[in-house]
C-alpha cells in the first residue's frame, strides 16, 4: 500500500510539474494578495488591538491559506481529468488499493503546497518580514498550512469523485473562499463590528488556522493555546477529509 501510494504521489508530482499552469497562477495570486493587502491596509496595524505587530505578519496567513485553497482545489481537478481521460478506470483495474489511488494525489498536493508556502515566505522576507519568535514561527506556520492543505485536498478529491465533474469540483472549492473572508481575515476578532460576522468567525475552522499562524507570527512569545487549537483543527480536518475521499473512492 505504501509503495503504491508513493508511486501515485510521484506520478501526480510529475503531472503537476509538466502542467506549470496548474500552479503558477495560484502562486501569483497569493503573492499579489500579500502585496496589495500590505500596501493598502498596513496603517490599520497602528491600532492598539494589533499590539504593535507588523501588518505584514498579520496578513501573511491570509496569503498562505488562500493559496492553499486554490492549490488543493487543483488536486480534485487533476483527479477529474483522470476520470475524464479514462486513466482513473485503468488505475481501478490494477490491484492497487482505492485508498492509495486517492492518497497519492493528496500527498502530491500537500507537497505542492509546501513548496508554494515556502515561496510565499521567501517573498514575505523580501518585503521585510521578521518573525519575533524566530524559526519556530516559520516552522509552525508551514505545518499549519500543509495540514490545512492536506485536509482541503481531501475535500476536493472527495467532491471530484462524488460528482465526476470538473466544474462541480471547482465550484466545491470556490465554496470555501467565503469561509476565508467570514473570518478574522483582515482584522483581529476584537475589531469585527458586525455581530453575525463574529459568530461566523467563531464557527469557521479557517479562523483557527489563521489564529494559530498568528500565534507564532505576530506575538513576541508563542501563544500556545491558539497554536494548539489551530493544529488540532488542521489535524482533525485532514483525517476527516482523507476518510471522506477514501470512502468515495471505494464506491468508485
Amino acid at each position, binding site marked *: 500500500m505504501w509503495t503504491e501510494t508513493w508511486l501515485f504521489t510521484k506520478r501526480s508530482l510529475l503531472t503537476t510539474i*509538466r502542467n506549470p499552469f496548474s500552479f503558477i497562477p495560484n502562486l501569483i495570486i497569493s503573492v499579489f494578495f500579500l502585496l496589495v493587502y500590505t500596501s493598502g491596509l498596513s496603517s490599520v496595524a497602528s491600532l492598539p488591538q494589533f499590539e504593535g505587530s507588523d501588518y505584514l505578519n498579520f496578513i501573511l496567513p491570509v496569503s498562505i491559506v488562500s493559496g492553499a485553497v486554490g492549490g488543493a482545489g487543483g488536486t480534485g481537478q487533476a483527479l477529474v481529468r483522470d476520470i475524464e481521460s479514462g486513466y482513473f*478506470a485503468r488505475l481501478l483495474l490494477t490491484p492497487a488499493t482505492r485508498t492509495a489511488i486517492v492518497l497519492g494525489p493528496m500527498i502530491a498536493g500537500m507537497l505542492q503546497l509546501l513548496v508554494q508556502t515556502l515561496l510565499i515566505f521567501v517573498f514575505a522576507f523580501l518585503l521585510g518580514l521578521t518573525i519575533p519568535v524566530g524559526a519556530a514561527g516559520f516552522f509552525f506556520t508551514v505545518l499549519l498550512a500543509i495540514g490545512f492543505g492536506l485536509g482541503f485536498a481531501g475535500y476536493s478529491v472527495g467532491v471530484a469523485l462524488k460528482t465526476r465533474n470538473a466544474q462541480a469540483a471547482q465550484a466545491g472549492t470556490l465554496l470555501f473562499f467565503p469561509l476565508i473572508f467570514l473570518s478574522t481575515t483582515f482584522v483581529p476578532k476584537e475589531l469585527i463590528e458586525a455581530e453575525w460576522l463574529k459568530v461566523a468567525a467563531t464557527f469557521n475552522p479557517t479562523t483557527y488556522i489563521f489564529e494559530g499562524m498568528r500565534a507564532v507570527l505576530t506575538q513576541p512569545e508563542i501563544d500556545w493555546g491558539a497554536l494548539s487549537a489551530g493544529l488540532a483543527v488542521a489535524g482533525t480536518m485532514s483525517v476527516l477529509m482523507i476518510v471522506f475521499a477514501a470512502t468515495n473512492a471505494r464506491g468508485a
Partner: protein
Amino acid sequence: MLTTLVRPTSGAARVNGFDVVKQEKDVRLSIGVALQETGIDKVLTGRELLVLQGRLFKMSNEEAQRRADELLEVVSLTDAADRRSGTYSGGMRRRLDLALTLVHRPTVLFLDEPTTGLDPASRIEIWNEVRRLNEEFGTTIFLTTLYLEEADELADRIAIINHGKIVSEGTAEELKQLVGGETISMDFATESEATLAATRFHTSSNGTHVSFELRDMTLTEIVRSLDEQGLQPERLTVKQPSLDDVFLKVTGESYEGGEIRVD
C-alpha cells in the same frame, strides 16, 4: 462486472476461478482490460505509463523497465516511447492502451470494441496482435464489438446479445447455419439456358439468373452437372452468409440495442 469495475446486484461470477466479489484482487491480477475509451494519461510518456503500470502490478523497477521495453517493441512504439502520449495518433494510443493491458501477462483479456474509430490499417494491426496473443500465448480473449466482420475474423465462439440477453451462441459457422448454408448464383447468356439449369437443380430461374442454396452438393458436382448438360454460365459465384444476416435474423431484424460479444 466480470472486470470488477461494477459490482453485481445479485448472482455470482468467476473469472479464472476467482470470485468477482470476494476475490477482486486475484481477478484483477489475472485479467487485462482495454475499455472502449483508451485509459491514458496524456501528460506521461508511453514508457512512463508502462513502467508505472508494471510497478502497480507488483513488479520491481528493473522488471517493469524491461517489460516496458519489450511491450514497446511489440506494439511498435519504441520510437515514440519517450514522447508524451498526448502527441500520439489515435492508432498509436490504441496500441499503447493494449500494451498497458498486457503488462502483467494476463491470462484472460477483455477488449471492449478495440477497433472502434480506427482506420483500416490500424484495425488490421490490432487484429493481428489479438490473434497473436491468442495463438502464441494462449490468452483467452473476451471481445465485444459492433463490427460483425471483426467477430467473424477473430472469434472462435460468438454470442449475440440483444437487449441485454444472449440470443444466440456458437462458432461463426454454426451461427451462419441458422440463416442457411452457402448460396450459389449463376448468370447465363440466354433465358432458355437459365431455365434449363434451373430445372436441373430443382429450382426456378429469374430471367437469365439462377440462384439456390448449396446444401449438401459440392461445387465440383454442380460444375460437372452443368458440363454434362452443355451449359456454360457466364458468371458463377458462391456466397457465404455473413454474420450480418445472422444478426438481423436472431435479433428479429430490429436494429436497436444489438451488441455482439465474442470470445
